[in-house]
């Protein structure tokens, strides 16, 4: 294929200049190197997380102290409030969890853990990031058009989202939809790249059951995304036509059916939960085995359970619509499947606990994040049982109970999972160790306030506090003093938690510049990425590795060391 070198490739351009140091633009901005693209995704995702966190700060302040001028934001009007809540949800899922957990870790880990030099389609990879960046810019631009940002909740149910006279955002809602569609295109391109790379470019000797679990999970998540997103893309086009051309796909007054949108949305929306959950579970599996120095309990069980979860996740979507007027007979079916899907997830939790059992556990920062992922996600999963049963859900639906439930799933996924992965692979990514002490301060400063935000919200939800209300003082039975006190508690915990993120950024920057130099394999881990230099050069290895065994051979009896890297012949 040497004759087919495209002349615009940066790598080729470098060759023409006689192996000079690549320019800033080709090294950092238009790079096709999977590690650089991973960093681009990571930092874009972090920037969006800051924006999404700021939105949470603004509307939580409004809820705790209705009508005050929020420092740094100003008065939160009802339209502002709707736009903030909507975009907080959309940003945290589509522009934080997806890019960081799947795109950043997928890009970084798949080639390194599979022992190859790059993604199979490097330029497609770069295009995927560029489209993603464009989608983020488009989303943020919606705040500066007439009518402001879209305020119809991240689920965008019509007819509220379909008609400008209801949503009052004639442009914002379409821009929002366009941004989401662009984001899907970016992840379809990225996902095909991930799947193809993991299927086709593994190191010689790496059989199916030698692939680290995190790679399996990212690939399965990409497949789930790819197979579930189609109906929503079709639905987004229909909704866009409803908004801009005046069609009536979802307009009940003119023969459309708004419930169809809910089905199209949640047929994607529920697998999406597993799309972001699986990579976080995978990261946790890697961390737990390394820091418990034990083989993963039941590798094949975990793998088959993951596949079962993936398939089941396509059968549960309508449990989000129990009070939308769906057919009650179908509600029975969806209750059953929803309760069924808790079985494989519970199994996964037991597998992780069994992995810890009898291990020699080292409580480093990444391990703390990994353990807290199990504990916190467990609360999210258990509260989901109440909501999955259609009888109970009628009472809980659209209260803060639901909100607290899904924050107890998404926070462990998007925030704990990310911090776990980032602190674990930081030495590999940047060649320096992170400060463990600051890391632990940040850990406790995040986890404790997190529980103080959302456990009170469970209580409020059971007290009947409805979601999507801008100012509770209009509702006497929802603004009793004890309820307002709880709102203030949750908001002040949020402020504390956001404050502790400063510790993380300080630690990140200081460790990046002057942290202790990291060796190739500081955690004594088995997987292939730890056999490359820290940070790995372009092309990752001088000579690509060969694999001889599975990734979790820790504390094997009869060996001097308690680990056994995958690339060592014996």
């Amino acid at each position, binding site marked *: *294929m040497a*004759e*087919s*070198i495209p002349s615009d*490739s940066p*790598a*080729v351009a470098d*060759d023409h200049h006689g192996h000079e140091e690549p320019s800033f633009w080709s090294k950092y901005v238009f790079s096709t190197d999977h590690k650089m693209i991973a960093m681009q995704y990571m930092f874009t995702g972090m920037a969006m997380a800051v924006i999404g966190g700021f939105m949470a700060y603004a509307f939580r302040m409004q809820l705790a102290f209705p009508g005050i001028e929020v420092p740094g934001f100003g008065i939160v009007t009802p339209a502002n409030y709707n736009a903030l809540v909507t975009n907080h949800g959309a940003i945290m899922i589509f522009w934080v969890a997806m890019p960081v957990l799947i795109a950043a870790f997928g890009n970084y880990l798949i*080639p390194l853990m599979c022992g*190859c*030099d*790059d*993604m*199979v*389609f*490097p330029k497609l990879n770069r295009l995927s990031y560029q489209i993603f960046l464009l989608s983020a810019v488009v989303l943020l631009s919606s705040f500066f058009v007439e009518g402001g940002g879209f305020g119809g909740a991240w689920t965008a149910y019509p007819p509220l989202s379909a008609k400008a006279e209801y949503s009052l955002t004639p442009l914002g809602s379409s821009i929002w939809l366009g941004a989401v569609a662009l984001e899907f295109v970016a992840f*379809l391109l990225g996902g*095909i*790249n991930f*799947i*193809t*790379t993991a*299927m*086709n*470019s*593994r190191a010689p000797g*790496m059989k199916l059951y030698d692939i680290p679990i995190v790679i399996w999970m990212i690939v399965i998540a990409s497949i789930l995304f*790819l*197979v*579930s*997103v*189609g*109906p*929503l*893309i*079709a*639905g987004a*086009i*229909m909704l866009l*036509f409803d908004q801009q*051309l*005046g*069609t*009536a*796909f979802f307009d009940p007054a*003119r*023969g*459309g*059916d708004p419930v*169809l949108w809910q089905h*199209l949305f949640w*047929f994607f929306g529920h697998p999406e939960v597993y799309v972001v959950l699986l990579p976080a579970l995978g990261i946790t599996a890697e961390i737990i085995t390394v820091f418990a120095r034990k083989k993963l309990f039941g590798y094949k069980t975990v793998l088959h359970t993951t596949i079962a979860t993936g398939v089941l996740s396509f059968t549960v979507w309508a449990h989000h619509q129990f009070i939308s007027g769906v057919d009650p007979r179908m509600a029975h079916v969806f209750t059953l499947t929803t309760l069924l899907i808790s079985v494989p997830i519970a199994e996964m939790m037991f597998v992780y606990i069994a992995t810890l059992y009898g291990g020699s556990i080292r409580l480093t920062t990444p391990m703390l994040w990994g353990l807290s992922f199990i504990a916190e996600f467990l609360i999210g999963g258990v509260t989901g049982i109440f909501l999955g049963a259609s009888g109970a859900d009628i009472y809980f639906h659209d209260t803060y109970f639901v909100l607290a439930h899904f924050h107890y799933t998404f926070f462990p996924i998007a925030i704990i999972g990310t911090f776990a992965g980032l602190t674990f692979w930081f030495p590999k990514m940047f060649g320096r160790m992170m400060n463990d002490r600051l890391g632990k301060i940040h850990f406790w400063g995040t986890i404790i306030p997190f529980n103080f935000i959302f456990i009170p919200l469970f209580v409020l939800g059971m007290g009947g506090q409805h979601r999507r209300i801008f100012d509770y003082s209009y509702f006497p039975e929802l603004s009793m003093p004890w309820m307002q006190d709880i709102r203030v508690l949750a908001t002040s915990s949020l402020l504390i938690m956001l404050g502790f993120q400063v510790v993380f950024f300080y630690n990140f920057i200081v460790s990046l510049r002057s942290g202790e130099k990291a060796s190739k394999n500081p955690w004594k881990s088995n997987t292939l990425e730890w056999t490359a230099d820290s940070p790995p050069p372009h*092309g990752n290895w001088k000579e*690509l590795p060969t694999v001889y065994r599975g990734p979790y051979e820790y504390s094997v009896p009869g060996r001097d060391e308690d680990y056994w890297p995958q690339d060592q012949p014996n």
Partner: protein
Amino acid sequence: MKPIATTRSTSGMPTGLLAIWWVVGSEIVIFGGLLGSYIMYRLSHDAWANQAANTNTALGTLNTFVLLTSSLFAVLAHRAAESGDGKKAARLLYYTIGGAVTFVCVKAFEWSTEIAHGYTITSNTFWSFYYTAAGIHALHVIAGAIIMAIVARDAAKNMELQRVELIGIYWHFVDIVWIFLFPLLYIAK
């Protein structure tokens, strides 16, 4: 410079071929969601048959014929590429593009006639689906033709001949989508 990763094929398939099948999989669900929605609406509204009676079966048939024929050229191009004859493959791909152009022209004529008769995308939901589904399909035809032109340009120089098969698979998929759209929009009345 292609990375070594691109040249490996652990799964037993060339990388490009594997990726194109995943693309087809993701397209199946896009059209599946759209056509599934259409079928559900259609079955619940008897009145849609009266609307569908106004679509032009003759032009629909002509377009089906054009797409089937262009698919034949695409697969013949694949055979030529496999025997290493890039020039012939490129020529056949240009015939395929010709089919795409014919398809789009017929479509443009058909739509302008219908719009002139007052059947626009906002007339009612049948026509909304009619224009949306056929429109998304036509976008795939146009995108496929553009990519095919790039592939044909390289193939004429005997470069990247494996791409002839890949764009062919995409093209046949677009053909299959039309094979289902045709009875849904034109035949069932």
